[in-house]
């Protein structure tokens, strides 16, 4: 764009410092919050009061903080489930299905061992370990199915994982609704309640899955940065033809990232239904958790593939969605304010990517380029 003697162009940034990365994220958050004022104002709520309600519940209220942590853990596992295949250039859209598979497998352990009848066949610690392993394995199997189809037959992984979401959604419905094997005692369209000894152990209200989620963040980033396997995944993601040339097997790699991603989604399923106080069963509104899983995609994309970078983003998403939900009830805001806020955040984050990769450059146009404009019309 030419403005007088200056030219304004959008050009790629050569290198981006970490400070700048954080700065763009902060600006994006502030912008989203500023835009959400319109939401609050349109509902005739006091602006300050609305923000206070959102933040105080999400990050300062003792109950709210715990809820934020629980939801952040869930989102983090979903983030990893998307992030690992993404680094290999593959899109795992099957997070809900893999979450449900993980949940079903976790509840299958006490079901098979008849543990819901309060007579534990095995020590609870071992059973919990089995439940975690079963959840991860089930998620991995479902992911691996898509990975295998992709690797062997070039079937689009996005389609396969999407379809599996639907299949698993209805499988869960069959399992927990009236007459289903996992039906709860009250038969109100919910799964059976986990016996107390089998619920995930808590420390100050925080389940052990928090340690798993944070540990996985560090390990994943180390995997990608330092190991030969991580190198292969990244190489395949950047340029599959070059990776093949480098001796990397596309079949093995596609399968591996989907196994790993699916396992993380399975853990998310384990966490959501066996580790959150007040749930401890597959509830009737389990579909909500499936929808929530998709925020893992957003946070992985915003974190630019860094698992550790996704931690604050997942916490923010968790907190704002819960806080907005709370504010909606407390201040009688219109329905859906929480989703609107998340949507705004998503948009500003994605918009900030343009400024992250490009910069506006002001340049003085050299005078010889500027044609002297005729000051008078020629005769005739």
């Amino acid at each position: 764009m030419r403005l007088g003697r200056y030219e304004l162009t959008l050009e790629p940034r050569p290198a981006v410092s970490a400070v700048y990365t954080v700065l763009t994220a902060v600006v994006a958050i502030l912008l989203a919050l500023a835009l959400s004022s319109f939401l609050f104002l349109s509902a005739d709520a006091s602006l300050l009061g609305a923000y206070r309600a959102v933040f105080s519940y999400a990050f300062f209220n003792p109950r709210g903080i715990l809820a934020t942590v629980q939801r952040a853990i869930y989102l983090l596992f979903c983030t990893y489930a998307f992030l690992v295949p993404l680094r290999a250039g593959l899109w795992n859209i099957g997070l809900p299905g893999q979450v449900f598979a993980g949940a079903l497998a976790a509840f299958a352990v006490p079901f098979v061992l008849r543990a819901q009848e309060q007579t534990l066949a095995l020590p609870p610690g071992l059973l919990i370990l089995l439940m975690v392993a079963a959840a991860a394995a089930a998620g991995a199997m479902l992911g691996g199915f898509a990975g295998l189809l992709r690797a062997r037959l070039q079937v689009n992984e996005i389609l396969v994982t999407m379809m599996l979401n639907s299949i698993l959604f209805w499988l869960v419905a069959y399992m927990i609704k009236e007459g289903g094997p996992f039906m709860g005692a009250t038969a109100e369209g919910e799964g059976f309640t986990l016996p107390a000894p089998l619920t995930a152990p808590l420390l100050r209200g925080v389940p052990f899955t928090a340690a798993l989620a944070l540990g996985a963040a560090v390990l994943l980033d180390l995997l990608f940065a330092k190991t030969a396997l991580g190198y292969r995944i990244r190489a395949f993601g950047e340029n599959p033809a070059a990776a093949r040339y480098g001796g990397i097997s596309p079949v093995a790699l596609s399968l591996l990232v989907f196994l790993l991603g699916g396992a993380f989604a399975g853990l998310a399923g384990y966490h959501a239904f066996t580790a959150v106080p007040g749930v401890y069963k597959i509830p009737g509104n389990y579909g909500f958790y499936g929808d929530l899983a998709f925020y893992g995609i957003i946070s992985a994309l915003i974190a630019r593939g860094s698992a550790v970078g996704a931690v604050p983003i997942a916490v923010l998403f968790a907190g704002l969605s819960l806080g907005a939900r709370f504010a909606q009830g407390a201040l009688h805001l219109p329905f859906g304010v929480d989703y609107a806020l998340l949507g705004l955040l998503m948009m500003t984050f994605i918009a900030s990517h343009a400024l992250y990769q490009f910069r506006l450059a002001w340049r003085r146009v050299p005078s010889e380029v500027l044609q002297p404009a005729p000051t008078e019309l020629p005769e005739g």
Partner: protein
Amino acid sequence: MPLTLPADRAPAEPILAARGITKRFPGVLALDHVDFEVQAGEVHAVLGQNGAGKTTLMNILFGLVQPDEGGLYLRGQRVHFRSPHDAIAQGIGMVHQTRRLVSAHTVLENIVLGHPRVRGFLNLRGARREVEALCHRYGFTVDLGARVWQLSEGERQWVEILKALYGGAKILILDEPTSVLTPPEVKTLLAGLQALVRDRGVTVLLVTHKLPVVMAASHRVTVFRSGSVVARLRTGEATEEILVQHMIGREVAFRTADRSTETGRPLLHVEQLSAFNDRGLLALRGVSFSLRAGEVLGVAGVTGNGQEELAQVLAGLRPATSGKVRFDDRDVTHLSPLERWRMGVGYIPAERIEVASIAAFSLVENTALNYHFDPAFTPRGLLDDAGLDQLTRRILSAYNVKAPHQYARARHLSGGNLQRLILGRVLSRRPRLLIAHLPTQGLDVEATAFVRAKLLDARAEGAAVLLISEDLDEILSLSDWVAPIYEGRFVAVLLREQADSETVGAMMAGLQKEAGAR
């Protein structure tokens, strides 16, 4: 059987002429004061090697490229083509080397697409009648309702020709029309073109580097070499030998490899190797040879004759449909690329950016592409960053790679520097078999000399080198054996002493095909 012009037709005013055309691209003089004439109602062959300037001139005639100097004349009138629209409006049609059809649409929809009269609503019924009339007039039989993806390559070509004729073309430019066709399809195409010219007065410009096509289907031929016209002949008065001489030129500089080194034991045996290309056509058709340590086999051919497939099959990146590869007394036909790299095979692909490097990765990470499986560089599964860093810096200095530092992204390297890096990376593994595909393509003189010297160094150190190139000078100066390749077969495997540029050039262009193993 060369064609002759009807005797009663005197060489009249040309229907289309280009005079004094010069075109420069950055760093290249693509066309140097070229004069070119086409008579009405002839098949005019435009012959030349890759990079001779044929396609550039055709693009100028079709309005895709504007000349820096010179002008175009249509029936004696000076014309300016600002875009292909202008050329089409004047009755010029072009069928490009790569198909430009919408494969999910029907033949009819493709023919009608982009026609100037089709604006807003589509009158397919009316168009169908017109196209059917056109088909009838030209004697084509194409199912207008078929989807393009259902057609063979030959049929798709006809659809493009039909599209050009429907657009009102009287002069038809065909750029390498036979390159993707099977031999029977070629025969059909050429016969059809002759009928168009003979019965319908269409003028055809046939751009090719294949001599049999020129001899079989053209009335006259213009030969290009390095951006200039070097010969204008009646096909009936030309022989394939004369055309080869014009195409390749006489002044060939020889710089042969030092032949004093003893050749070692047999390392590579290839028997009757065949492979499909990406389109599912048999592109490599029963190639056999063997290669000793310390020898260079130069595979000479025009791109698209099976070289790519040969290199990829030997590297394990493409399955062989039949035949056998033995390396180091072991059947490696079905081994993965990784297993071959571990056995000491090195591969320099033709596609530097697409295949041989990762643009977004640093130079160190690009080095790791050939080392991530090497136990010495991956202790306990971790990448040895320090070791790779050191290795990369050694490669940068030994191979004169001009880069700011070893953590610069590969995308910031120029083509020549990238190729030096790839070469250094592959040679640093000291391969016993080196497959080098177009190793100097697009490089400047200095980089070319450097790459060639390094290939000879590898040979001197006892590597068996398979050099695949279009550049006859390169093949002749580096090779111990020369194998011209044409349509997926080695026409012959010659000792360097028996190979001169005329013989090899003729074989590359499909002459003396009978001499090869058929």
